C-alpha cells in the first residue's frame, strides 16, 4: 500500500435514541492509502454510512462522536473547527450522495450548480466564457456532452445516470484527494449502474484519487475496490484485499453475505449459504454481535467481544476463523425446478397500454401476449420504463388496456376493476415493491390481515384470529406480530406481511412487482426462499417482475424480456440464460456484476434514442449488434428457436449465437473502436 492518506482510529458514534444514546459505530479503525479504493459493505443499519459521513466531519445535534479520531493530513476531522472543515470539504474530501434526484437542486441549471462548487472554493473561473471552460472540462471528464445547451438544463431534464454523473463532476470539481461515494448506484438500472462503475474505474486510473465506496452490494465492490471492509452492527468484522475476500471469506458474516447473492455463477467455489434472520440492534449480545445469526457460533461467542486480528492477508474479528475454513461445505439452496403448469391460467392477448391522450400519448406496452400456466412462475424482465409494472397493473385492472384482452381460465376479464366480480378480484393478488408504503402505518398487522378474510370469506371473530395466526405462520412470522403496527417492522418483515395479506385471499396468481428490490441482500435471500416454498406448497402461479436477472434465474420457470413495452425474447429459464440471446438480453446479462472476474464495461454507444412510435425495432439505437438501417425502418420478425424460445430480432438465431460468443465480442469492440 502506498502512503496513508486518511486514518480512522477507534471511532465510535452514537445517535440520540429516545432519551438515551445508541451506539451505531463501535471502535472502527481503518486506513485509506493514497490512490486506494476502499469498499465498505454491510446490511442497512450497520453504520457504514455513518462512518462515511464522519470522514467529512459531519455533525448533527442528534449525533455525537463518543471516541476516536479521523486523521487527515495531520488534522483530526472530528474536532476540527467548522470554518476549517468548510475549506476541506469539497476541496480535499468530497462526497457523492446516494440519490442524485434529491441531491441536485431542482431549481438551478446544472452548469451553475457545478460552477458553484468551484466558486465556493475560490477556484479560477476562466472569465472569458463565464466559467464555461472549467465546467466544460468537468462535464467531458464524466462523459457528459460538452455543450452549452447541456449546461443550461435543469436536473429533471436529465436521466438518473446523467444526474449521478453531474454529482460526480461536482465532487471532482476541486481535484480532491479522497472521494466518498455513498451507495452511488443503488437507485439506478443495472445497465446504468455498470456505466457509472466503468466511469469511476476510469476516473480513478486517470486522476489517481482515493475513494471510499459504501454499498450493500458486494458484487459491485468486486469490480472496483482494492480492499473491502465488512461492517456488522457498527463494528468492522473483516477487512481484506478484494481478491482474498471473495476467494477466502473468513468471517461467517462475510460468507453469509457472499452466499446471499443469488448466483449467476452456479459453481462458485466457496461453500457459502445465505444469511438468516436480521440485525436486531436492541438485542445484541455482550460478545460478538453476529453470534445470534451465526451458523458457527458457540456459547463463548455470545460472551467474549471479538477484536480484529490478523488472519494471514486479512483482518478478522472472529476467533474461530481457522475452524470455519476447515468445516465441510454446506448445502446450497435448492434451485427452482418445478414442472410447468399444464392448464392455462392467465392469458394476455395483444395487450397495448397507453398513457395520456392525443399527441402526448405514451405507449407503455405494445401488443404484449403471453400465457401463464397454473402454478407457474413467469418473470418479466427489463430496465425501468420498460413497461413491466404497467403490464401487471393492467392484469390487476388498475390500468385499463386500450387494446387486447386479459383472460383468466380462458374467460376474458373486464378491463376496469369496478366491473370485475369479487371472485375475479380475489384470485389475482398484487404485492408491491415498496413494503413501507404497502402497509397502513396506522393499522395493526392483525387488522391488516383480518380485513381480506372478512371481505372475501366473511371470516371474523375467533376464526379470524386463528386464520391470522396461520397466515403469519405461513410466512414464518411469530403470532406476536399480529399486535404490532406496520412501521414497527423491518423491511423484510413488512414484505412478509404483505405476502401474507395476499395469501389469505387464497389467490391463484400473485403479481409480484419488484418485491425484492427494496430489501437488503440477506433479506432478499430469505424472501426468495419463502417464495420458493410457497410455490411448492400452495401451487400458486406468480408473475415476478424484476430487473435483477440473478433473482429471476433462481425462481422463474419462464422468462419474458421487455424493452420499452415490447417483448424482445421469451422462453423457459434455461433457454433465456443460454445462447442464442437477444442483443438486449445479452446486454442485461453482461451488466450483472460478476464476483470473480473484473471486466470492463464496453462503453455503450450513445446514439439518439429512437422513439417507440417509430416503425423499426425499439431497441435500435442502443443495440450493440445493430445491422444497419433495416433495424430502424422495419419491425423485426419473431424467430422461433428450438423448444419454446422466441426472439424478436433481424439477426437469425445462428448469427445471434455467434455474436454472443466471447471472441465475437472483442471483435465487435475492435470494430467499434475502428469505426470511431
Amino acid at each position, binding site marked *: 500500500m502506498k502512503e496513508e492518506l486518511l486514518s480512522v482510529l477507534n471511532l465510535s458514534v452514537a445517535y440520540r435514541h429516545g432519551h438515551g444514546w445508541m451506539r451505531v459505530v463501535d471502535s472502527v479503525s481503518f486506513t485509506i492509502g493514497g490512490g486506494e479504493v476502499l469498499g465498505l459493505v454491510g446490511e442497512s443499519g450497520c453504520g457504514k454510512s455513518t462512518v462515511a459521513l464522519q470522514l467529512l466531519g459531519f455533525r448533527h445535534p442528534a449525533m455525537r462522536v463518543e471516541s476516536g479520531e479521523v486523521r487527515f493530513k495531520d488534522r483530526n476531522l472530528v474536532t476540527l473547527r467548522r470554518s476549517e472543515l468548510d475549506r476541506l470539504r469539497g476541496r480535499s474530501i468530497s462526497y457523492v450522495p446516494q440519490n442524485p434526484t434529491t441531491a441536485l437542486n431542482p431549481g438551478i441549471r446544472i452548469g451553475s450548480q457545478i460552477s458553484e462548487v468551484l466558486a465556493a472554493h475560490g477556484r479560477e473561473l476562466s472569465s472569458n466564457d463565464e466559467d464555461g471552460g472549467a465546467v466544460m472540462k468537468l462535464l467531458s471528464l464524466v462523459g457528459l456532452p460538452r455543450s452549452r445547451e447541456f449546461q443550461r438544463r435543469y436536473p429533471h431534464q436529465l436521466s438518473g445516470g446523467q444526474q449521478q454523473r453531474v454529482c460526480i463532476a461536482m465532487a471532482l470539481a476541486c481535484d480532491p484527494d479522497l472521494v466518498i461515494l455513498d451507495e452511488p448506484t443503488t437507485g439506478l438500472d443495472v445497465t446504468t449502474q455498470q456505466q457509472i462503475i466503468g466511469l469511476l474505474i476510469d476516473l480513478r486510473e486517470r486522476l489517481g484519487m482515493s475513494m471510499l465506496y459504501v454499498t450493500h452490494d458486494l458484487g459491485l465492490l468486486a469490480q472496483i475496490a482494492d480492499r473491502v471492509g465488512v461492517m456488522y452492527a457498527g463494528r468492522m468484522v473483516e477487512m481484506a484485499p478484494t481478491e482474498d475476500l471473495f476467494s477466502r471469506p473468513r468471517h461467517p458474516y462475510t460468507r453469509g453475505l457472499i452466499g446471499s447473492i443469488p448466483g449467476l455463477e452456479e459453481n462458485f467455489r466457496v461453500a457459502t449459504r445465505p444469511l438468516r434472520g436480521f440485525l436486531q440492534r436492541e438485542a445484541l449480545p455482550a460478545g460478538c454481535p453476529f453470534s445470534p445469526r451465526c451458523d458457527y457460533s458457540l456459547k463463548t461467542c455470545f460472551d467474549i467481544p471479538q477484536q480484529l486480528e490478523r488472519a494471514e492477508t486479512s483482518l478478522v474479528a472472529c476467533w474461530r476463523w481457522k475452524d470455519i475454513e476447515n468445516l465441510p461445505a454446506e448445502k446450497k439452496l435448492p434451485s427452482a425446478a418445478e414442472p410447468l403448469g399444464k392448464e392455462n391460467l392467465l392469458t394476455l392477448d395483444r395487450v397495448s397500454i397507453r398513457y395520456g391522450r392525443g399527441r402526448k400519448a405514451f405507449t407503455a406496452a405494445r401488443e404484449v401476449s403471453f400465457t401463464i400456466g397454473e402454478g407457474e412462475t413467469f418473470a418479466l424482465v427489463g430496465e425501468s420504463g420498460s413497461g413491466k409494472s404497467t403490464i401487471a397493473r393492467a392484469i390487476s*385492472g*388498475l390500468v385499463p388496456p386500450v387494446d387486447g384482452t386479459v383472460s383468466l381460465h380462458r374467460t376474458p376479464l373486464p378491463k376496469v376493476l369496478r366491473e370485475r366480480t369479487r371472485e375475479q378480484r380475489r384470485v389475482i393478488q398484487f404485492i408491491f415493491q415498496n413494503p413501507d408504503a404497502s402497509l*397502513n*402505518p396506522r393499522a395493526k398487522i392483525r387488522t391488516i390481515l383480518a*380485513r381480506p378474510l372478512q*371481505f372475501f370469506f366473511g371470516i371474523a371473530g375467533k376464526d379470524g384470529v386463528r386464520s391470522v395466526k396461520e397466515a403469519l405462520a405461513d410466512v414464518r412470522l411469530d403470532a406476536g406480530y399480529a399486535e404490532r*403496527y406496520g*412501521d414497527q417492522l423491518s423491511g423484510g418483515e413488512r414484505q412478509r406481511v404483505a405476502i401474507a395479506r395476499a395469501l389469505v385471499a387464497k389467490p391463484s396468481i400473485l403479481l409480484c412487482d419488484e418485491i425484492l428490490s427494496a430489501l437488503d441482500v440477506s433479506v432478499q435471500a430469505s424472501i426468495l426462499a419463502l417464495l420458493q416454498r410457497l410455490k411448492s406448497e400452495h401451487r400458486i402461479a406468480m408473475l415476478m417482475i424484476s430487473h435483477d436477472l440473478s433473482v429471476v434465474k433462481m425462481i422463474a420457470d419462464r422468462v419474458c424480456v421487455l424493452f420499452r413495452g415490447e417483448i424482445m425474447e421469451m422462453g423457459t429459464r434455461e433457454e433465456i440464460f443460454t445462447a442464442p440471446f437477444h442483443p438486449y438480453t445479452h446486454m442485461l446479462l453482461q451488466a450483472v456484476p460478476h464476483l470473480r472476474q473484473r471486466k470492463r464495461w464496453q462503453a455503450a454507444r450513445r446514439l439518439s434514442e429512437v422513439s417507440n412510435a417509430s416503425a423499426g425495432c425499439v431497441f435500435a439505437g442502443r443495440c450493440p449488434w445493430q445491422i444497419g438501417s433495416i433495424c430502424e425502418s422495419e419491425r423485426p420478425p419473431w424467430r422461433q428457436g428450438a423448444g419454446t424460445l422466441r426472439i424478436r430480432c433481424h439477426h437469425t438465431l445462428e448469427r445471434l449465437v455467434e455474436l454472443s460468443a466471447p471472441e465475437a465480442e472483442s471483435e465487435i469492440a475492435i470494430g467499434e473502436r475502428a469505426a470511431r
Partner: protein
Amino acid sequence: MSKAELARSARRSNFVPLVGLWQQTPMSFRIGAIVLLIHLIIAVTGPFWAPYGYAQMGAGPPLAGMSASHPLGVDQLGRDVFSRVVHGSHIVILLSLSATLLGLVVGAILGLLSGYLGGWFDDVLQRLFEAIISIPFLVLALIAIASAGPEHSGNPWLVVLVVALVYAPRIARMARAAAIDIATRDFVTVARLRGERAWSVMRRELLPNATSVLLVEFALRAGYAPVLIGSLGFLGFGLRPPTPEWGLMISENRALLIVSPITVLGPGLALASLVVGLNLFTEGLARILGRTVRLGAQ
C-alpha cells in the same frame, strides 16, 4: 422489606408508567394540557364559587377598575367582570368545541371522499366549497341566520350550525389534500384492488392516516371559534346579552377600552389563553400521534 415499603412499591408500579408516559410527551403538549385543564376546571366548577352572578348589577361602582374584590374590574352596568368571565367559560368552551367538531366531522367526511373518489363528485363538491369560502364568513353567517328566521335568533344551536357551516368547507379542503396524498400509497391501492367501497376505504385507510392533519386543523378552527361566535353576538345575531360570552363581552366593552382597559383585557386574556392552550395541546397531540408507534416500541 417492610409493609410500608411494599405498599409504596406496589403503588408506584401502577403510577410510574403514567409518569413515564407524561415525561415522554413533548413540552408543548404538557403546557397545553395544563392550560386546558385549568380552563375546564373553571368551566365546570366556576358557577359554584364565582363571587357574583353573571347578570348581577351593582356588584361595584361601574368602571371601578382593578381591585382585590374585583380582580378584572367592573363594567359600565356595575357587573363584576371576573365573575362574568368565570360564568362564561363553559358557554364559550362548549359552543366552540361542538361547533368545530360538527364542522370537522362533516368537512372530513366530504373532503376525504372527494379526494379519494375524484372525478365529477370531486369537481362538483370543490366548486361548491369554493363558492361558500368565497363569501366572507360573517356575511355567510348572517345569510344563514337570516334564512333560519327570527324565531331561532339567539338559539345556541343555530350558532353551532352556522359556525360549522363556515368551517366545514375549509376543513374539507384540508382533508381532501390529505386524502389525495394518502390515496397514492400502495395500501390504498391494495384496498381498491380488493374492491372495497369508498366509505370503507375512507374509514379504514384514509382517516387513521389523516388524523394528525385533521387534529391540527381542529385546533386552529376551535381556537378561532370563540372569536367568530363573539362577532356574531356583537352584531346581534349570536347569543343575546346578558349571556357572559367572552367575545360578546369584548364587543360590549370595546368602546370603554381607554376608560377601563381591564374590562376588555380580562375576557381577552381568557380567550387568548384558551386559544393558545388548545393550539399547544393539539400540536403536541399531533406530534405524539405521529410517533405513537415508536413510543410503543421502546
